[in-house]
């Protein structure tokens, strides 16, 4: 990234273990982890930044570590059943500061989930991921409108924790 030399694999493994145990494990849902990891990436360069990891290892190692964790979390979420994705989305909406109806409307409109996919993801995998989120949003939206057959209203407005 900055030095131009290949980062050491052993360092990347150590950094990834540390990042998983200290940071990712504190984030309860895969969807939240994915959004968090995507937010560590510079949209213009595609490189990831993390001051703590960079200080402890190097910027290159931090970047590779976050990229690897991002791919890993994306893959885990991709393989989740739709039911789980809906649960995760409802959980994420509950933790957001936005009213659920506004959230669903905004996500349907500008599809911000499109930027959380790791670089060089296979188009079929991205397509499946987007499609699952689109359907999950439709299900959550229908629940909010009380249109779902015999299901609870999962995304009811609740006071959100400080994020």
């Amino acid at each position, binding site marked *: 990234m900055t030095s131009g030399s290949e980062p050491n694999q052993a360092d990347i493994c150590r950094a990834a273990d540390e990042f998983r145990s200290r940071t990712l494990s504190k984030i309860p849902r895969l969807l939240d982890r994915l959004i968090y990891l995507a937010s560590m990436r510079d949209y213009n360069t595609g490189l990831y930044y993390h001051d703590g990891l960079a200080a402890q290892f190097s910027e290159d190692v931090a970047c590779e570590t976050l990229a690897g964790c991002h791919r890993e979390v994306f893959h885990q979420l*991709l*393989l989740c*059943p*739709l*039911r789980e994705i*809906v649960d995760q989305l409802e959980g994420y909406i509950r933790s957001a500061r936005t009213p659920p109806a506004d959230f669903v409307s905004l996500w349907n409109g500008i599809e911000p989930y499109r930027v959380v996919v790791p670089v060089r993801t*296979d188009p*079929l*995998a991205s*397509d*499946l991921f987007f*499609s699952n989120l*689109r*359907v999950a949003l*439709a*299900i959550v939206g*229908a629940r909010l409108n009380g*249109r*779902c*057959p015999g*299901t609870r209203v999962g995304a009811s407005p609740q006071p959100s924790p400080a994020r």
Partner: protein
Amino acid sequence: MIQLIISILVGAGLLFLLYALARKGTKPEGGAQALIEARQALNELKHDLLPHEVVARIFAKDDLDYVLSAAPEDVVRLFLQQRKRIALSWVDRVRGQVVRLKRFHLGRSRSYARLRLRAEIALTMDFATLLFACRVLQILVFLRGPYAAPQMIGTTVGIVEKVCGVSEASLAFLDSTNTASLDGQSAGTVAGV
């Protein structure tokens, strides 16, 4: 007048045929490009299209059951439409990669002197079955949705994996370890000289 038009049409047809033949002839079969394409096709099949968990997720029946039980009709329609599109795209890409592998094997068999006839015939049959199965799958998914032929998907994946195994063996000499050993050999030869 009519004779003149017919002559012009025949002439244009011949010119077009000549152009098509000339274009086809510019791409040597079994060359480096074919090797690279075959390796790319194998990688794409192995890592992106064939992993069982990915295939299982695309054609997951539990997702359909969940949507049927938990969502209104318009969402069920949206779900089926989305999964159908993805399933068609999956079949289309698998077919595309199989065609690339077939092209590679065809080029290889034309330039390879010591062919094992039985193995080549079996491979040809596998390719033919696969391409036919992909077409049938495309039609079934298009007409009846992604859940129309679950067994056929499993069978198709099985044959693609078999063909991938054969192709992998044919391309083994391109592996980095082999390349490294070749490098070592050539370095040794150079040193010997």
